[in-house]
């Protein structure tokens, strides 16, 4: 798609719903430098959501949507869980199918889009909770990586099943007492970032979403690498403030506390050799582009 396709006929413009008018006037589609700073300025980023007030998932969603390099040609795949509550409000195509099958859906989707649009870039981004990614859907998560499917998998790790009321998940910390873990969780938090690396992901990041600029960077990297090279995986801590008993103002602090160097969400990044090379090329191109723009601006003011 391009922004051209969503242009309304001039004669009909004033009778179109204001949502569409705003989308045409001020969307970030087609803008190479779009990013988290556009939040609040444009219509296709989330305005409202149905998550709990202050839920870090809602922050993460906004940062991710604002950072997609190519939203006009991006399809997102979700799964049942709190993540699915927000999708009706976003302006990229979203597939919600079942619980846990998101990477299988994305595999078929990416291949279909490649068959149908061989000369165009269509990005696919999966976004699901930890129950969907690491428990019920683990087989399909891993197999998509083994097959080197070219899409990004994002796990919103809130360390439990939030949507069904706080049951034990594979990413929950050992010892945590939860519903269905009445004497505390008996095994360690599954080390999915390491497994992702061993399974063939070319870019793996484990972090919180406390800093929008960081989320922007890792999303852009993950999507670009997935597009050109192979699977990428982001595990983002989005604590379920409801189930861990925090109030709506405490999500950010919870993330800051858990990203300290000794904590389980200290920033960790893995980049494969081909991915490093790609990122270097992209950075060089970006520099060139910005320098050219600067020069042009200089000429205009001179």
């Amino acid at each position: 798609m391009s922004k051209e396709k969503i242009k309304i006929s001039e004669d009909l413009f004033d009778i179109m719903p204001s949502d569409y008018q705003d989308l045409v006037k001020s969307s970030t589609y087609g803008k190479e430098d779009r990013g988290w700073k556009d939040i609040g300025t444009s219509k296709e980023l989330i305005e409202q959501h149905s998550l709990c007030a202050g839920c870090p998932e809602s922050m993460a969603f906004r940062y991710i949507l604002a950072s997609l390099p190519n939203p006009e040609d991006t399809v997102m795949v979700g799964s049942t869980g709190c993540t699915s509550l927000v999708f009706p409000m976003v302006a990229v195509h979203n597939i919600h199918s079942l619980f846990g099958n998101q990477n299988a859906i994305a595999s078929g989707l990416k291949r279909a889009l490649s068959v149908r649009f061989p000369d165009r870039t269509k990005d696919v981004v999966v976004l699901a909770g930890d129950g969907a990614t690491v428990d019920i859907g683990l087989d399909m998560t891993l197999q998509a990586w083994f097959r080197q499917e070219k899409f990004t998998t994002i796990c919103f790790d809130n360390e439990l099943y939030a949507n069904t009321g706080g049951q034990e998940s594979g990413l929950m910390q050992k010892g945590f007492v939860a519903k269905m873990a009445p004497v505390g969780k008996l095994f360690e938090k599954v080390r999915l970032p390491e497994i992702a690396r061993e399974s063939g992901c070319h870019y793996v990041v484990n972090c919180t979403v406390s800093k929008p600029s960081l989320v922007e960077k890792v999303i852009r990297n993950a999507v670009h690498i997935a597009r050109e090279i192979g699977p990428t995986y982001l595990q983002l801590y989005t604590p379920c403030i409801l189930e861990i008993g925090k109030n709506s103002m405490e999500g950010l602090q919870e993330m800051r506390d858990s990203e300290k160097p000794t904590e389980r969400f200290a920033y960790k990044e893995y980049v494969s050799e081909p991915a490093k090379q790609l990122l270097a090329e992209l950075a060089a191109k970006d520099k060139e582009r910005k320098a050219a723009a600067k020069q042009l601006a200089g000429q205009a003011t001179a």
Partner: protein
Amino acid sequence: MADTRSVIGTQNKKGQTFTDTWKMMNEAPRTPSFFTGSEVIKEALRRASCDVMIAYPITPQSEAAALIGELFAEGYIGDYFRGESEFAVMSQCAGAAFGGARVFTTTAGPGTMRAMENFPMWSGARLPIQMIVTCRGINSPLSIQPDTLEIAYLLNTGMLVWHAETAQDFFDWILKGYMVSEEPDVHLPLALCCDGFFVTHTKDVVNLTPADMCLPPYDPYRSPVPCMDMECPPVRMMRDPFVMKSNYISYATHASWQQEIWAAVERSRKHSIHWLDGLIDTENTDADIMIVASGTAVSQGREAIRLLEEEGVRCGLVKVKTLRPWPEEEIREATKNAKHIFVPEFNVTGWLAKEIKATIPNHERVHAGPHVCGGMTMPPEIIVNEIKTTLGLHKSFVMAGRGS
């Protein structure tokens, strides 16, 4: 005005000509070929302009799925791969169909059951995926033998369900199936079932359409729901998420959507009648005794009728081609003269007999059986025996040549 966008008459990259399907199926010359059912599936797919096929091995469909892999290697299919399980494969098929591809897969028995959660999702999402089900046993103890119990589970998924008798049905219905399920007012998945081994692993003469003709490609923009390819702007679907059923509007959306799926199944009726030349085939509908069957039980029924005729007993036949849409009116009409209706089935529960009983007046006329199950063959003599025993026609019928 000529439709300049039509691809009919142009060639694909394999040099096949996109051909009007009606002409291809009804007017093009046919070549008799001696093939197994699995090979016939491959030949149908060669002509199906299929974009994506996803495979997982399970007897007795493995051979067909592997043969389609060969077609991919030859360049007839856009993409092909082996998924990690049937649940995953059906999800991968869904993803590909969401992305606007014409999709094909095959499965059998336990694979059908493992994938079950996907099927109502397929129909709910209006994905016109075609799935061949080469029926086999689903229960424990393990069996790979043919048994049609799994069809019973598919009947309420919102999918179209057709039951092929022969490899010829298979060849024609795979191609025609896409035409019905891709109609904008239908746009539903199709489970095209056959009795595994009896159809897949036996050789038969099948009349094939020319290999250099193929179906027109699928146009995903004729779908009644948006294709998930970002080629049309997405809309905010609703203010409240769809799982919030306390919201009356959201609830009403769900309820009416289910009704819409079943209405679409009904709307497929006219298209299925057009393409399959009716939802049922009949013989001797004026007879007092009728056999009503689907799948290979139809062939056995035909043979039973011949045996009975030799003994002076006249018997008619209804071949049920589509189970969804269900040919309610047709079956009522075809059985209206019958005093006794026998429903031979390759399963233990007799799901077809139950459907028929629920359809016709005076259903005590229906004798549910004979049943063979667990993968047994159904010698026509068993049907003859059932009819004669039930009707007290027995003298000393011996099952010829089949000692215990």
